[in-house]
């Protein structure tokens, strides 16, 4: 007779349970991405509604933002996310040195992105900050920066553990690598949306 006690549940051990856990993680991540991108959309709505309270955008007397550095930053981030993806494929194919190279490059490019955006954030002109043109720019880049920073740190942690061999033994065991990569893709997609809204939609 099985005796049941209300305590810790037994940990799933077999293959099937691991596969189910991976399936759950993937669906959970997809839902999280679909959900949290809405917060970024909310800020796009903010930008959109506020720009229509001005006769022109950028408002009279405010210089439009320079395009060069933000565009370079965007390029760095997009390259970074592609490298993260390539690294993920390499990780699954057990090509450890290629994985390591891709992710190191990706994190370096990610850091370049962060530095450039931080510079943009810091150098908004006083004229722009007196209007919503500058304020919504700081709101959006700042909100994005916090996410990028946290997830870049996560990439670093996962990278170090992966190199140390923590995630070997099949797709389910490598979920952390896949999950971190997906979060970095999220950061990239969110930024590209912001980049278009902030710098191209006039």
């Amino acid at each position, binding site marked *: 007779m099985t005796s049941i006690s209300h305590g810790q549940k037994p940990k799933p051990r077999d293959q099937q349970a691991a596969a189910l856990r991976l399936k759950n993680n993937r*669906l*959970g991540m997809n839902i999280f991405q679909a959900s949290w991108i809405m917060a970024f959309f909310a800020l796009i709505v*903010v930008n959109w509604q506020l720009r229509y309270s001005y006769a022109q955008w950028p408002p009279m007397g405010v210089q439009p933002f320079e395009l060069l550095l933000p565009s370079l930053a965007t390029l760095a981030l997009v390259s970074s996310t592609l490298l993260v993806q390539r690294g993920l494929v390499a990780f699954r194919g057990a090509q450890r040195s290629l994985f390591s190279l891709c992710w190191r490059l990706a994190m370096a490019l990610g850091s370049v992105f962060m530095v450039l955006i931080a510079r943009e954030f810091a150098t908004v002109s006083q004229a722009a900050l007196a209007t919503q043109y500058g*304020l919504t720019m700081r709101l959006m880049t700042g909100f994005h920066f916090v996410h990028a920073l946290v997830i870049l740190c996560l990439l670093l942690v996962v990278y170090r553990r992966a190199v140390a061999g923590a995630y070997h033994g099949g797709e389910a065991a490598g979920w952390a690598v896949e999950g971190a990569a997906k979060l970095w893709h999220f950061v990239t997609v969110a930024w590209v949306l912001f980049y278009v809204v902030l710098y191209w939609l006039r």
Partner: protein
Amino acid sequence: MATIAVPIGAQAEQPGAEAVRRPALSEYLRWSVDHKIIGVQYGISSFLFFLVGGAMAMAIRWELLTPALDLMVSGSAYNSLFTMHGTVMIFLFIIPMWAAFGNFVVPLQLGAKDMAFPWLNAFAFWLIPPAAIVVLMGYFVTPAEAGWTSYPPLSTLFSGDGQTLWALGAHLLGISSIMGSINFIVTILNMRPEGMTLWRMPLLCWAVLATSIIAVMATPFLAGALTLLLLDRVAGTTFFDATGGGDVLLWQNIFWFYSHPAVYIMVLPGMGVLSEVLSIHSRKPVFGYRMVGLSSMGIAFVGFTVWAHHMFTSLQPELRIPFMITTMIIAVPTGIKMFSWLGTIWGGKIRFTSAMLFALGFLSMFVIGGITGVMLAALPFDIHVHDTYFVVSHFHFVLFGGSVFAIYAALYHWFPKVTGRMMNERWGRIHFVFTYFGFLFTFFPMHIVGMLGMPRRVAVYDPAFTQWNQLIGISAFVLGFSSFIVVYNVIHSYFRGPVAGANPWRALTLEWATTSPPPVTNFIDDPIPYENPYGYGTEAATAYLDAVDETFRHGGLASSSH
């Protein structure tokens, strides 16, 4: 036709009477990843907040017994009182209360042994107590005075630090809600055992699925709005300040894009409960099962397109008619549910249990709330009664007459499963009578004073409305008193109620195909769902139910334990 699933009877040995025991009360005070424990944790904490919010409602009605200020020292004190009442009831009572039933019941109904993300689930619950402390603490510093909707400039220029704490607390609650909902969606989609197809899912699961989809897609907008509010309050930005190029209507757009769908977060699970309770207690299949499941999805979808009806008086005129139309369209999926419920009980063998009484109470009250909703959707009428007690009446008919009645129905219905003991039916009926009439005479007259022009959110009113307000006040005290009857009943029944057995209502859904309370793993073996979760009244169903009874004959709560 029916392959009689002989479900559970043929399964491996079941736990004997001695193995079925309740978790110790102390387990509810600790971190636990068991969804049944978490469900009870949600339930008890949100009911405590119901009592807190209810005490505030009593203070509001006490103040309004006379047209002048008496209980409150100032209009500002009254403002912070109703602000806190609304916030506590919505964010700390109704939304987490549905997480309580969702947590306890949904995995069992699916036949799942666990949820997809138990740790995330527990974390989502444990965010609520700190969030509640932050929100309530605000009441004791310089309180928020802007109502639960926190419109700027009331929430930026005229509220104290309590408003900042309010926004921080609401942020935490939003994160909790998103995490809990991700867990629900993945559980419902991935954790169903063999044989439990989407179209065999009980309707509560459909409703929780729709609710969770709304929560994950809408709540980030609340996060966005609260971020802006916090920045305006503490960082000197001017997003809501026209003198700095901002726009006060910005808040209303972003906030209602979350908060209108949030209305369905509060009522959709109640609609799911109603389908369960009405079908089981009238021994008839749910009329139009698939349409009811799909109408939950329909409400979730259309619910995203109606938010600006909260802003009819401040909206650009050309947008009013489109939002009026989408708002009225919501009545279609809601009407499908209404007629389905009527069709379900029509000609049924109705048993007037307490759960059934509250479900019927929901039916009668929610139809009034729904009709006043359509009235308010009509633009000319809305402008006439804008910001009057008619609106207060409407949303209390939906949120009390709807959600709270459904919460009580769910409580009487699933209490035996949670505790292994039945609730007292006599006290249940008394509770129902006090609640039903207390509610009706509290909120129905508000329609009348609203149409006569009494504005909401005021402590001092035209003496012409005094008698109406005295009727409302006295009925409100009766309604407030009624919640102590159910508290007594719950405590009494927990210790002294008759032992329930596995399936006291003879229900076909899977939460009843295990012991009461269920073991930690919910089921000893994967249960085999009956082909139709509501297929009552056939010989096959009777055979299935007999098999369940036979399986768990010895599986009841041992009468010596408590």
